[in-house]
Every structure is written in C-alpha cells, then in structure tokens.
C-alpha cells in the first residue's frame, strides 16, 4: 500500500510527500524526519528568506503608484480578487434568479407568452480570466502539436526533408511573439470575417501566436526522436515487412514518444510564457489583459494585483509542467525522465 502511494507520488513528481507516507507506514522515523527537513525544510527556509528580502526591498522603492507592494499587500490583493469573484458570482446568480421569477410571473399571467433568458454581461472575474488563458493556451498548443508532430516525423524519417526544413526552423524559432502578433492580427481580421460569434478574434489571434511560437521545440524534438530510433526497431519493421503507415504507427511513433513528449513539454512552457504577451496586445480577456488593464488603471492597488497575476502565472506554469512530466513518464516505459 505505502509502496504503491510512493510509486504514484514519484511518478507525478510529488517527491515532497514521500517521507510523510513512509513515516505513516512506520518506517524508521529518524530517517524520515531528516528527509522531511531536507526536501521541505530547505525550500521553506529559502522561500522565507526570499519573502523577507522582498518585503525589505519593496519598502524602499517608491513608485508613482505608491510603494512597491510587499508579500502582505499581495496576499491581501489576492484575497480581494477572490472576494470580487465571489461577489460577481452572487450577482450573476441573482440576475438569473430575477429573470426566472419575472418569467414565471409572465407565464402565470399568460401561458402563451414568449420568455427569454438574457445572458449576464458583468465583467469577467480573475478566475474567469485564468480560465480564458488556459483555454487559449491549450488551443494554441493543440494547433502547434498538430502541425509540429507530423512535420517532425517526416523530417526525422528523411534527412533530405530535414535539410530542407532546417533553415526555416532555425530562422523562425527565435522570433518573438510580439513580432508575429501584428501580422497574425491582420491575417485573422482578413480571413475570419464571419460573425457567428463562435470565437472572438482576439482569442484566435492569441491562440495562433501561441502556436507559432511554441511549435518549434515539439518539431525539433520529434525530428530528433524519430531520427535517433534504435536501429534494431527499424530492423524489426524491415524483417516483418511493415508498410509505411504501419511502420509509423507501430514502431516510429511509440519509439519516439519520450522525445516527442519532451518537446511538447517545452512547447507548453513556451506557449504559456508567450500567451501573456499575446493577450496583452490582442486584448484577449485572460491574464495578459488583466495585467495590462491593471497597468493602465494605475490605482494604488494595481501593482499588488499585477503581482498576484505574476504568482498565478508562475504556479500555473509549474502545474502544466508537472502534468507534462507525468505524461512523459507514462510513455517512457522504464527509461528515466529529467523532471527538473
């Protein structure tokens, strides 16, 4: 039982909790306490030192929006944002309830009356914005993966294709999202002219910019993974006389999955980083826009609220990375995965 939990935790990269499980299972308490002190104590001390340094320095820096906020101010802002979210939700619920009551009254008076439920149009809360950001980054990441993995496989299989693609990859890889954005915006405006309201233009622009910037690591890693498949596996395919697509799906893709997922993991990280910049400029209602709006707003709370966003972005990025590590381990079949 304890071993199963430990395996699961180390599989997910949650190594912090392993000593606690061991302690509960009754393994040598002295060792476990020492482990707890090293894996948890040291990071906590480091964080405390950082917080102290931060609050000391922040107090020294005066901006036009007041002092740079320290940890306490940021914590309070975070709480305010959550309260605002809760308040907005209550308002929304009340709005729908009022409509329903009104509709019920209308129907009681005249059973044939046409009733409508109007959508709530309040401003998005912080949580909504996080949701939008996540949805946008996953859309962009999905587009990037759908382009990068097939091209990467073809590049890895054929060195002439690789030679052909290589200069393009090398040139486009370092381009900043900020350079792509105006072009993407114009192209999206020109091509996406329907008004069916399925997607906002700002959402499409952000997602495509994310895709353009994050597809390169996946492409390069997939190509590398496919090119470095163990020659024995290819020999197996040859001896069995597998057809082209059978070879791809039964040998090439499974064999290069660890590499592909390493690439996807880097891509998702890059995508998340790029997304904030893209949302700022494209005005997609996510965390990027939140930061930008707070900056433009310029109230005495703005800096603290932006710092809340900074930590949110960091934590979500960290979580996304952990999720990808789990996938990566899942497809590595006993080979080691670097999870740093």
């Amino acid at each position, binding site marked *: 039982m304890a071993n199963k939990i430990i395996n699961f935790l180390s599989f997910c990269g949650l190594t912090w909790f392993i000593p606690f499980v061991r302690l509960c299972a009754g393994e040598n308490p002295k060792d476990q306490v020492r482990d707890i002190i090293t894996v948890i104590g040291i990071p906590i001390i480091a964080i405390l030192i950082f917080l102290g340094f931060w609050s000391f320095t922040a107090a020294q820096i005066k901006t036009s929006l007041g002092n740079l906020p320290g940890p306490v101010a940021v914590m309070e802002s975070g709480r305010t944002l959550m309260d605002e979210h809760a308040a907005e939700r209550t308002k929304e619920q009340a709005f729908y309830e009022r409509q329903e009551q009104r509709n019920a009254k209308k129907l009681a008076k005249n059973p044939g009356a046409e009733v409508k439920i109007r959508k709530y149009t309040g401003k998005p809360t912080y949580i909504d914005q996080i949701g939008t950001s996540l949805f946008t980054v996953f859309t962009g990441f999905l587009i990037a993966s759908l382009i990068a993995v097939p091209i990467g496989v073809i590049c890895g299989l054929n060195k002439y294709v690789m030679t052909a693609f290589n200069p393009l990859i090398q040139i486009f890889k370092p381009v900043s999202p900020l350079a792509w954005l105006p072009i993407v915006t114009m192209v999206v405006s020109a091509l996406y002219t329907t008004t069916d309201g399925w997607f906002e233009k700002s959402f499409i622009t952000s997602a495509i910019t994310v895709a353009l910037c994050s597809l390169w690591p996946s492409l390069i890693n997939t190509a590398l993974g496919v090119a470095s498949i163990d020659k*024995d596996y290819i*020999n197996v395919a*040859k001896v*069995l*006389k597998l057809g082209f697509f059978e070879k791809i799906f039964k040998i090439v893709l*499974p*064999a290069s999955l660890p590499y592909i997922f390493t690439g996807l993991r880097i891509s998702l990280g890059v995508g998340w980083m790029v997304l904030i910049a893209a949302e700022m400029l494209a005005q997609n209602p996510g965390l990027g826009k939140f930061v930008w709006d707070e900056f433009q707003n310029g109230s005495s709370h703005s800096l603290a609220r932006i710092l809340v966003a900074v930590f949110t972005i960091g934590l979500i990025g960290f979580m996304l990375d952990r999720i990808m590590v789990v996938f990566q381990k899942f497809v590595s079949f006993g080979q080691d995965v670097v999870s740093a």
Partner: protein
Amino acid sequence: MAFLELKNVSKGYGHGHDRVDVLKDISMSIDEGEFVAIIGFSGSGKTTLISLISGLIEPDEGEILLNGKPITGPGPDRGVVFQNYSLLPWLTVEGNVALAVNEVFKDWDAERRHEQVLQYVEMVNLTPALQKRPSELSGGMRQRVSVARALAMNPQILLLDEPLSALDALTRGTLQTEIEKIWRNDKKTVILITNDVDEGIILADRIIPLNPGPNATLGPQFDINIDRPRDLNQLNDDDVYKKLKPEIVEYMLEIGDKSASETTLGDLELPDIQPKDLRLKLA
C-alpha cells in the same frame, strides 16, 4: 540443391581510403534442417554475415540463394533473433509476439493468431509473463521472447546472432538446452552466430570458423557427431568432444594469433621509457 547457399559473397563499408572490407569471398551451403554454428572473434564480421543472410544489407559481390532464389531483402521467411533482443519496450510479451504473428499471418482469423501467439510464448515457458513489458523481464526472459517472436513467424530458417552472449553463464546453459529442445521438435534450419566454442559444440551439427576480418573468410568446417540430446555435464567425458574441442580451440587461437601479427603498428614511434621498479612499496 542446398537450402541456403552463399556464393562468393563479399561485403565492405565506406569508400576510398576509409573503405573496410569486412567479408571476402564467402561461400557455404546449408541443408534443410541443419543446425550450423559460425564461430568467430568479436569484430570478425559475424553480424555482417547474418545481416546479409537476413537481407538487411546487400552483398557487394556474389549472391545468396534461399531455396534457389536470390535474397532481395528482409522478410519473415528468415526469423532473426538479434544480439540485443530488440524487443519493443512499449509492448507486452504478448504484444511483441503478436506484432510479428499479426503481420505474417494476416489472412488468419484473430482467434487462430492469438492461439499461435500463446503457443509460442508457452514454448519458451513465458506464459506467466504474458502481460509484462520487456523492462520488467530479466535478460534471459527477454531473449526467450525474442526467440518466441522469431519462431512464431514460422520462418524457413532461423538466424541467431549471438543470442546468448549478453547472459550470465547459468542462464546461458538453460537457454542452450531450451534452444536445442525446440530445434529437435521443430527441425528448422538454424544458423547460430557465436563466440563460444562449447555453445557451438552443444547445439550445432557443424561448426564453421570465421577467420578474423578485415577480409574475413570461412575456415575449415568441423562436423560434430555427438548424439542428441547433448548434456553439458556428460559432454566432458565424451570421446568426440574431447578430441574436437581442442582442435577447434587450437584452430581459433592460431587464426587469432595470425591476425594479431598481421596487424602491425607500422611506423608508430614508441616512447623511450623503461619501467624501473614494478614492485609495490609496501612499507
């Protein structure tokens, strides 16, 4: 007509100055149902020879005939057991064998293919490990899966490329016995590549030494007329064995020495250093 025939086969790698001729003018013929062991030093071109027969590489000169027809590429009629197992790590034991069976016997129905898989996994005594992945198996078990995969394709000829060289001595002994048993039941043509004289003597009808490369050629063959089943423990008292083993070993050592003396250092300048005292100072 011989079952498998190699006619003046040569193979080298590279071009110009970097060219290395691995095999030179190899000719041999193997009859159906025969178990032939090819013994050679590391680097003498054994794997090149088996790759040629399996069709993974093509000879520069000469031709290889199977049943009178030239070999043009790899195919499931020649089952290969590779030196490093080459099992697919993402598939289970069953999956690895099934991949081969499903590919070779496409026209069979699913049930019959499944039975074929189970039969050959059982043959190598791995039924309990059917659902395990290669990373959960020991080296010997992996090699048995590899043998099962090759045999399940029902090949005309089985090519074993140093299948046991990565295993410990005990496992090697068990697997030798197992391979011999399978061969006796199946009477398949087998070519075994090995660097172990004893392994050749236990398993094969005929041992052919491969003289060390570059330009490796085949040496004189040794017929092994020892009754089967051969028991490793009783072998030491067998008269044929007692005569044959020193003969083969002597021949191997001779060609080994010859090749070592042929590889000269050239005009390499050696440092003018004399060791003064090689004893350890203990005090």
